[in-house]
């Protein structure tokens, strides 16, 4: 089994396919929609409307760049509050028109900065969690690279959460975890092993439902393979979720997250 930290490295590769790569490959007729209607168009979050086969859907992604220029534009995939608000606007729009939502997640975390605090980074994430809990359409999120903490969860409160084989999902980066708990960021690899951040571990914990295979060394080596696999699974699962009566869908979503916690009494 590959050490967890090797997966962290693959998940962070600059050559790793981005949200827009998946959106363009899997969906047809994607029309990108911009802005949160309050402040700004945060390019760390992309989203719009498209077809999955013949089903109209809303697609949203946290976007990383493949070079410095792109990364500066999309802030290295670290959304500001308006990015989360843009995502929420598109999800509420999806709800209005009865469209399922598919979210692609790839962020080291929500941005930490003065503007982000002034404009309520905490509130923006909290609002998404509150609204997504009862959003009346099926939602699937796919972690395609890094799933960093609250900044990832803000798009991952969905009926299904899937992960690519070499993606990671964690409460904090292994470096952050090691530096907080051991005061030594260099022990990140050790932290990664302990933290249960790989798709395999999270499948076992019930945090995710599916692991999507990648080519050896990572999906950048055969993007079509992973993207087609993912497309096939979405084409099965979205219609299946759409079949569910709304009550059942929402109850299952509630129970999906209700179950987490380990305690005695």
């Amino acid at each position, binding site marked *: 089994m590959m050490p967890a930290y090797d997966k962290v490295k693959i998940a962070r590769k600059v050559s790793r396919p981005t949200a827009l790569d998946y959106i363009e490959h899997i969906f047809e007729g994607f029309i990108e929609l911009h802005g949160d209607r309050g402040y700004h168009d945060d390019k760390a979050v992309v989203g719009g409307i498209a077809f999955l086969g013949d089903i109209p859907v809303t697609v949203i992604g946290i976007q990383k760049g493949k070079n410095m220029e792109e990364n500066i534009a999309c802030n290295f995939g670290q959304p500001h509050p308006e990015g989360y608000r843009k995502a929420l606007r598109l999800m509420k729009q999806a709800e209005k028109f009865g469209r399922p939502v598919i979210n692609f997640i790839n962020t080291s975390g929500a941005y930490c900065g*003065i503007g982000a605090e002034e404009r309520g980074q905490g509130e923006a994430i*909290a609002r998404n969690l509150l609204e997504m809990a009862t959003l009346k359409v099926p939602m699937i999120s796919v972690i395609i690279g890094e799933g960093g903490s609250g900044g990832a969860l803000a798009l991952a*409160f969905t009926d299904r959460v899937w992960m690519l084989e070499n993606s990671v999902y*964690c409460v904090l980066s292994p470096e952050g975890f090691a530096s*907080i708990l051991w005061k030594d960021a260099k022990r990140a690899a050790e932290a990664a092993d302990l933290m249960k951040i790989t798709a395999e571990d999270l499948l076992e914990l019930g945090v995710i439902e599916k692991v999507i295979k990648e080519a050896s060394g990572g999906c950048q080596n055969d993007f079509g393979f992973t993207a087609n696999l993912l497309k096939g699974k979405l084409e099965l699962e979205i219609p299946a979720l759409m079949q569910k009566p709304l009550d059942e869908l929402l109850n299952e979503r509630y129970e999906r997250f209700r179950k987490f916690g380990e305690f005695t009494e």
Partner: protein
Amino acid sequence: MDLFKKKYVSLNGEGEQKKDSGNIFSGLSSVFAKKESTEKPAPQPPKKEKERDEEVPAGSIKCPDCGSIYEKKELGSLKICPKCARYYRLNCKERVRMIADKGSFKEFDSQMEAKNPLNYPGYEEKIASLQEKTGLKDAVITGECTIGGFPAVLGVMDSGFMMASMGSVVGEKLTRAFEYATQHRLPIIVFTCSGGARMQEGIVSLMQMAKVSAAVAKHSEAGLLYITVLTDPTTGGVTASFAMQGDIILSEPKALIGFAGRRVIEQTIKQKLPDEFQHAEFLLEHGFVDKIVDREALPYTIRDILKIHCGKVGEV
């Protein structure tokens, strides 16, 4: 964070400054911090203790803000500096006494304790030693009470227990409190403070944010009232979930409230932040807090809000 820590030191129990230093959990005051204090834990507490002995007589304390030295009892039950009105942190039992009508509080789930989902080395021992020190099982107490005669569910977090980081127990007790409130059609008041997610529980602690939020959403859909009272410090995953989900969000003056830790932001932007950054007053100005309420006025303010929502007059 350091600046802040100097200004606002926990007064829970006997420990004061000793309590906040040299303990790995002091690092949790900023959960999203990439780098925390590198001070070695061992030599620090005795030194501080010595300093204290020299200038502060037994039974007295020195205000970290104004430097006045006075007897502990002069703080009164509200724990406010008699000289400069600085707010010391209240522990959850003191807070319940301050808010709930006398004798009305009935605690829920008082025996719930954390397990160790990551098998994190030393976690059980850390929990056990804090339980002994604080008399608490974990970082929140929940229950039912009346406030000015109005029935309500009450949740209070306690920064003296691992900086009130949110693990399974905090998440589960709050979720149950919201579910109880929904079922019995009661308003709920949560006093927040937290360093954020509890690192030692990893992804399970992150999931608590979603779990509690879903219970808040159900309570809200039932048309019921949720009041948040932000107290010092409320940060990280708690800010990014139920702390910011109240219908009405109150705060104590000068409480530190934010998503990211101060140190992380300073490292990211490579400049020092002003003192008032992320204080309650900053959030009020930016539109994220409804009202800043002095500690002594909180019970009455909450009662008045309940009165407007309950549609009947309570016994005051």
